[in-house]
């Protein structure tokens, strides 16, 4: 089913509108976080870059709408292998922890793309093997697919993003009708093993091959932020002060002292939500959460009404990805989750995150407008 002007009538307008709203809120928060109000600020450059990323993302959305999403299932193995290949190349030649490839004008971060690729691949795998997922052996294939990017990204020391792959896997397996008892067995058991390793590390000083010391420290700080208030606990404490001091209505745009006086770390990227909380208060926080709720809610509606199980699974995967990002990022600013470097979708500054998030939304819209009941 190629492009047809009438497809647009199927569009769930809540989705692009809520995304647009989030992007606008993000732009406002970023302009405060880069201190565009100050004479010597070069924050305008950051805003311009963000606008360029949004426009690139919109072009990708429109471009992808011309293809029926089912072509992605057809080519998914090739896309998956090439993405994994890029990740390996980065590991070998990159040697830096950021996992970025410099493509001249823009820095391309393959792990962002890998999330969407994994969703497209897993949707195909789960769709094709739905019956096997009632048995333990059936989990082997989807878990293997997910573990490849998981391990490659973990080796880049990006714990947050690698956990996103797990979230996508779990969400899609669950929605794909996998046996819940086996899921509990596998993921619950895995979690227990990891906990056991960490406990042994603390008690018996055994080596931890899957976590770097600083990543462990973040966990420790998450459990007890007072451990090192000017060292590793600093970010969390400053973030909580920023959020809390915003109180009900916030300090006002450009008036957040935690933000403007640089107490808040990574404030235009990872901790952008703290800026919103400080300058727009509880009302701003609730507004953002409600818009996310609306977006996820409508996406799940899209999933429910998807034309086929593949489309449904893709939307579930994207929802899981966003949900994990939102929960982890907002939770971390409030001290509910350990600190990782996950951006807040559509709001955090960063071209790669913005483009891949918009591409994901493009896929959702693609699936949305090609839903099963076309009434005319």
């Amino acid at each position, binding site marked *: 089913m190629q492009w047809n002007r009438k497809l647009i009538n199927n569009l769930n307008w809540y989705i692009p509108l809520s995304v647009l709203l989030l992007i606008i809120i993000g732009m406002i928060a970023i302009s405060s976080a880069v201190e565009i109000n100050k004479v010597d600020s070069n924050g305008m450059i950051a805003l311009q870059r963000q606008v360029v990323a949004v426009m690139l993302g919109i072009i990708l959305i429109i471009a992808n709408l011309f293809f029926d999403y089912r072509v992605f299932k057809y080519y998914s193995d090739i896309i998956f292998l090439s993405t994994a290949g890029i990740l390996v190349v980065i590991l070998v030649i990159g040697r830096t922890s950021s996992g970025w490839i410099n493509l001249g004008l823009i820095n391309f971060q393959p792990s962002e793309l890998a999330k969407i690729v994994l969703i497209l691949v897993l949707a195909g795998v789960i769709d094709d093997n739905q019956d096997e997922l009632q048995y333990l052996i059936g989990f082997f294939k989807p878990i293997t697919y997910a573990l490849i990017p998981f391990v490659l990204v973990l080796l880049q020391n990006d714990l947050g993003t690698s956990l996103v792959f797990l979230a996508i896997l779990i*969400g899609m397996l*669950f*929605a794909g*009708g996998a046996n819940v008892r086996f899921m509990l067995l596998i993921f619950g058991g895995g979690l227990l093993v990891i906990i056991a390793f960490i406990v042994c590390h603390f008690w018996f000083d055994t080596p931890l091959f899957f976590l770097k010391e600083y990543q462990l420290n973040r966990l420790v700080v998450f459990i007890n932020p007072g451990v090192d208030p000017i060292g590793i606990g600093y970010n969390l404490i*400053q973030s*909580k*002060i*920023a*959020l*809390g*001091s*915003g*109180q*009900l209505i916030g300090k006002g745009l450009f008036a957040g*002292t*935690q933000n403007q*006086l*640089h*107490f808040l770390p990574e404030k235009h990227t990872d901790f952008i939500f703290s800026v919103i*909380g*400080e300058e727009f*208060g*509880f009302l701003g*926080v*609730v507004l953002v*959460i409600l818009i*996310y*709720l609306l977006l*996820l*809610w409508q996406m*799940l509606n899209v*999933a*429910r009404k998807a034309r086929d199980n593949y489309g*449904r699974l893709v939307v*579930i995967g994207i*929802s899981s990805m966003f*949900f994990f990002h939102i*929960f982890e990022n*907002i*939770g971390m600013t*409030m*001290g*509910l989750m350990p600190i990782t470097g996950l951006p807040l979708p559509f709001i955090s500054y960063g071209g790669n995150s913005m483009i891949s998030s918009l591409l994901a939304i493009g896929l959702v819209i693609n699936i949305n407008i090609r839903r099963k009941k076309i009434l005319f």
Partner: protein
Amino acid sequence: MDRRIVIFKILIIAVFVVLIIQAAYLQLIKGEYYYQLSEGNRISLRPISAPRGKMIDRQGNILVNNKLSHNLYLLPNEISIEHTPQSLLEKLSGLTGIDLATMQKNFLMGEQQRSAAVILKRNIPLEIKVIVEENSDELPGVLVKDSTIRDYVYGELAPHSIGYVGEISLNDLQQFNELGYDYKGGDVVGITGLEREYEFHLKGRSGLERLEVNSRGEKINSLGIKPPLPGHNLILNLDMELQHYVECLLQEQFNYLREYAENDPELHTPEGVAAIVLDPNSGAVLAMANIPGFNLNDFAGGISQDRYNQLLYDPLEPLWNDPIKAEVPPGSIFKLVTGTAAVEYLGIKAETEFIDDSGKYYLPNWSRPFRNWHKKGEGKLDFVKSIARSNNIVFYDLGYRLYLKYQGEKLAETAREYGLGQQTGIDLPREVAGLVPDGDWKWETRGEGWYPGDSVNLSIGQGDLQTTPIQLINIVSAIANGGKLYRPFLVDQIVNAAGEIVVDYKPRLNRVLPFRDSTLAILREGMYQATNSSYGTAGKQFKDFPIKVAGKTGTAQTGTSRPNHGFFVGYAPYQEPEIAVLVFLEKGNSSAYTLPIAANIFRKYFGLESLEGEEETELAPSPEGAELNSENQGNLLFQFLYEVFSNDE
């Protein structure tokens, strides 16, 4: 399958509700608490150091002030990865021309103390500050900070009295803060002299600036200033002009006497010369000089260890303030004390006659004679003339008579009445007390009794007696003013920055001497004859002096083979004393050499013409400092050399 999407929706709602509850907890319930924290985060209180009080002489000349200086720091934590401290210092040295080795040494020293900011060089010139700031991008972690340092306007003027400042020691930090003051590590405090003695007045009170800062502690905005309270100014009794004159005079004579002594194998090269000028009616110190001295400005910007060691280990001890710290036997000056005891307790009168037939004095059962400085006997002399001639034989006899009557006690007691063996209480730190030996002391330290020989030795100011120059001039002042032993004072008033008087030091009596006026009058008469009669020990120098001077010479033996110290203490005018003068020539062989110095000080004070050839040098502010006129310096000496041949003790 839709059921699982519903579960997913429920999960999302549940998680978002948790997020909102946590947000409500942080922002609504604990919002006020976090708001206060955020306020505290951005406001930093920075102390503003108070300008240290000035020192001003009695004519209103500023002797000590403050000036801006720039210090060069390195912050080890802010050195970026592409630099090592070594490469950074090399670059810095290349850009500024500051000696690399000096900075490396300072850096290593600071690094050992693990300071956050290591001082590389204090007091750098403005040009270097500009160079460093212009190249700050290439010099990460290098910083220039402004501060004020002490400006000793005339660096070589009265360095011992004024004193210098330095970084507070750990000991002082504890001690001062226990006293209730608010000092911090790295504060600059007085180390010696008046800087030390009046530290708590000079220091002032730091102000505070409320700053809006970012998390790097950089200043964004000033939110208000509580201005510092400048330290109090000291108005000194010191007279800059007189002080400078005395210092030049002493330096000139010191240079000459050293040169002279080096050419004469009989003479020991003098090791220092000091003078004190004070007002005998109040104890106000008008001048107090000690040669050799040093330049206070060497200390102002932080002295290098090399320079400090050089001063510290100089055999002439330029850092040592002899007027209050030299503990030496007073020699014949002490005859004033023995004389007091003789008149008070032995009934001696001015006209009481003594006989010195051989220049030797024999104690019963003691074969070795005690000798007079004058080898032949002087025949019959009365008590006044005995003082004027400083005849040892007479005083040996008085000492022995005091021993017979009171053992060792009465003479020691009289000495203590004059303030010997105690600090005078001059407003300078670490004054020494000296020692008045007596029977108890001897028993405790030597384990033996007080012998007649001890009393005889003590009677002419020898033996174990230890006095300081300031104690001796205080004795003469008290005799001159009719018996009031004042506490010598360098500071007259303490005023605040607005000029209001905070403390006004009235003359303070240590005690009134318990001696009869007639007794003191005999001593005054003796001192008058010493300087005004042809036979007086200082007669040649002073008998034709336009102002009537009274005084006493003293040559103190420091041991049989060691060189003597020379003293002169006197006052003028005889009838109504205005000043007292003491000159102390350390290991300078004889008191005779002190006389022309004392005479010139009197001349200067009373505005009399200097001796021919004596030219006064002009006092110029540092760094040129007090330069000396080295020409014509021999004249004085030649003039009195033949005088001393007939009249030395």
